[in-house]
């Protein structure tokens, strides 16, 4: 089972990126779950989302020790970096988080996602740049699957957003 925790501010697209990951698992015939944090912390503090992708039925959908952490702001990084399972991966938006982890039992990738999104005309898609990096490092699905998943997650009336979303993911894979 692959457990993923995405965490950031409300509005950064944490839930959306998590939904793309979960749909990718579904398309590849895996068991998946997606559980958002809900409550007062979503207004101004951290919003996070647990995603599990597994070939067996999923017990707890709540991810406490993720195999993959996507940290999109400093409070989330501080809260979760020590929770990453040994051997796991942390993908960190280094545009917004200046810290570096001294953990040697996990692999950390520092991606300037927000800066890249701004400079590449992908404003607001730092979430998918980070998702691309996760795809590259954790291989949770094939790129074709992820593309199909994005098509499922983008509302029918907004299919023109498929292209920038995919460009962000591919950019993330190359960083």
């Amino acid at each position, binding site marked *: 089972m692959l457990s993923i925790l995405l965490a950031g501010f409300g509005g950064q697209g944490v839930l959306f990126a998590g939904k793309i990951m979960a749909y990718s698992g579904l398309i590849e*015939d*895996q068991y998946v779950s997606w559980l958002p944090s*809900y409550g007062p912390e979503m207004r101004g503090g951290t919003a996070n989302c647990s995603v599990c992708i597994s070939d067996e039925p999923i017990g707890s*959908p*709540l991810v406490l020790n993720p195999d993959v952490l996507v940290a999109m702001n400093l409070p989330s990084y501080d809260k979760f970096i020590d929770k990453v399972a040994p051997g796991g991966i942390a993908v960190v938006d280094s545009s917004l988080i200046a810290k570096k982890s001294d953990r040697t039992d996990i692999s950390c990738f520092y991606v300037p996602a927000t800066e890249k999104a701004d400079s590449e005309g992908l404003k607001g898609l730092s979430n998918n740049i980070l998702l691309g990096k996760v795809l590259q490092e954790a291989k949770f699905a094939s790129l074709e699957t992820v593309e199909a998943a994005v098509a499922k997650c983008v509302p029918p009336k907004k299919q023109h957003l498929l292209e920038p979303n995919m460009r962000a993911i591919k950019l993330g894979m190359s960083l």
Partner: protein
Amino acid sequence: MSSTQKMLMKGNEALAEAAIQAGCHHFFGYPITPQTEVAAYMAKKMPKIGGTYMQAESEIAAINMVYGAASAGVRAMTSSSSPGISLKSEGISYLAGSDLPCLIVNVQRGSPGLGGIQPSQADYWQATRAPGHGDLHVLVFAPSSIQEMVDMVFDAFDLADCYRMPAMILADGMLGQMMEPISFPEKQVKTYDKSGWSTSGHQHKRAHHIVNSLYLQPEELEAKILERFQRYEEVKAKHTRCEEYLMEDAEYVVVAYGATSRIVRSSVNSAREKGIKVGLIRPLTLWPYPYAPIEKAAERGAKAFLSVEMSMGQMVDDVRIAVNGRAPVSFFGRTGGVIPTPAEVLSEIEKMAGGDR
């Protein structure tokens, strides 16, 4: 698992869609976290199918609107979360006392009082012992996944109609808020003849029907209740549901329902890997309660039982009733909105088994 026709859907929305597909076109609600998406979905969909979505002025108003719609013979429902269900309890008693079918959804949150908004199972006693005042029961279904919740919505409406009694889906914030792959069953909606009692208009062609729960003659009221309890006995005999997991050779038994049971299942698997012969009994209906499989395990000589819940220990009472002193029954729970972890449950299983491997 096949992905054919499967889609990702949030529990609350899947539940609402299932209700519409089960022929419920009349929803009355009042917003409360963590079930608000049920009402939001209904608000969006009902006008498109010619149904009724009504945001009532309060939970009490909503349950009484359900009473009215159910009296007219249509499938009707309301949904809320713990504090709101308390407000509905008077109406639930009236519905039961008037033999009216309906669906009540409780997406439980931490309580008492306003409590919190995170998942909880602390309304077990309320749902199974006293959903309202008086001698009554409501059918209580306890799903552990979103697919199961969808399937149970259909069953709940059918059994409610068949036995003329309210049904409840007892979910929790985790099931309401999470997304999982689901598909909707291609079921023909069953219809039940309600023309013998519903207040659907008599057009001067028959005596008018009265839907009421007031019986001032004690003998008459007693007879009414006795008749109702005969129906309850039939429900118990025919519709008690439960799932047994790794129970064939189990020496230790964990009992858990709803969202907690899926966590326990992981812990049972881990305990098996460590050589502990443990199994899981998972009630799917909480009323009627599946005492028999627990009794059977106790008679067969199971060494100990453990009830795991998101409460301070409520269903454990029913486990004790079933075990009836034949083996020790212990309890583990987290409450107030805290979700137990698989590791915590595993450690409780190890404690129950002692050094016994």
